[in-house]
C-alpha cells in the first residue's frame, strides 16, 4: 500500500520534471531572446537535476545544480554580454534553413524512441535505487582514479586555452 503510493508519487514527480525539461528545451531552441534562452536553460538543468535525485543519484543532482546552474549559465550570460547581443527580441537567431534541421531532428527522435521502446519496453528501474555518495567517491578514487586525474589535467588545459584565446593581443 505504501509502496503503491510511492510509485504514484514517483510518476507524478517524473511527469512534472519531464514537462519542465521538454518545454524548457523547446523554448531554448526557439526563443528569439538570447537572455531568455539562458534562463530557460536554467529550467532544463534544474529539471534534469531533479530527475537525478528521483533515481537516487543525489550527489550528481547537486553537482548538476552547482556546476551547471552556478557556473555554466553564468558563463553563458557573460558570453552574451561580451558579444553584445541586443537585450530584447532579435529576429536573426534562427537560420533560414530551420525546416531542414527539423527534418534531421524528428527522424532522430523517432528512431531513438522506436529503438528504446523495442529494447527496454517494460523494464523497471526498481523502487530503491539509492546509491551512497561514499560508493561514488570510492569508485572515483579507486577504479577511475586515472581518468579522474586526466580530467583534472584537461580542465587545466581548457583553462589555459580559454585564457590564451580570449586575451587581447
Amino acid at each position: 500500500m505504501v509502496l503503491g503510493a510511492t510509485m504514484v508519487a514517483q510518476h507524478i514527480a517524473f511527469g512534472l520534471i519531464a514537462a519542465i525539461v521538454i518545454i524548457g528545451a523547446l523554448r531554448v531552441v526557439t526563443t528569439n531572446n538570447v537572455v531568455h534562452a539562458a534562463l530557460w536553460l536554467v529550467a532544463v538543468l534544474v529539471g534534469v537535476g531533479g530527475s537525478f535525485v528521483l533515481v537516487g543519484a543525489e550527489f550528481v543532482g547537486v553537482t548538476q545544480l552547482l556546476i551547471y546552474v552556478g557556473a555554466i549559465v553564468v558563463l553563458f550570460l557573460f558570453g552574451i554580454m561580451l558579444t553584445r547581443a541586443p537585450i530584447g527580441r532579435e529576429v536573426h537567431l534562427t537560420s533560414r534553413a530551420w525546416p531542414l534541421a527539423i527534418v534531421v531532428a524528428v527522424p532522430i527522435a523517432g528512431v531513438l524512441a522506436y529503438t528504446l521502446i523495442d529494447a527496454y519496453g517494460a523494464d523497471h528501474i526498481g523502487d530503491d535505487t539509492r546509491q551512497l555518495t561514499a560508493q561514488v567517491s570510492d569508485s572515483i578514487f579507486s577504479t577511475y582514479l586515472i581518468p579522474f586525474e586526466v580530467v583534472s589535467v584537461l580542465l587545466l588545459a581548457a583553462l589555459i586555452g580559454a585564457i590564451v584565446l580570449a586575451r587581447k593581443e
Partner: protein
Amino acid sequence: VLLNEFLLLGAALFAIGVYGVLARRNGVMVLMSIELILNAVNINFVAFGAFHRTVVGQVFALFVITIAAAEVGVGLAIVLMLYRNRASIDLDQVDAMRG
C-alpha cells in the same frame, strides 16, 4: 519508475539539442544546444546506472559534467574571439575555411 521514461526523456532532449545546433545562427545559442545534448547523455548514464545497480553511471555522469564545463569555457572563448575579429557571432558568415 519505468526505465523507458528516463530514456525517452533523454532521447527527446537529444533531438531538441540537435535541432538547436543545426538551426541556430548565434554562436552562444549553438553552445547552449550542445549543453542540452550533454544533459541527455547524462540522463541516460544515471538511468542505466540505477537500472544496473552500479555507481559507474554516476561516475561517468560526473565526468561528463566536468568536461561540459571545460567545453563551455573554450567554446565561449572561441565565440568571443570570433566576435572580436568579425564584429558578429553569426555562424552563417563564418566561411573562411570554405573550399
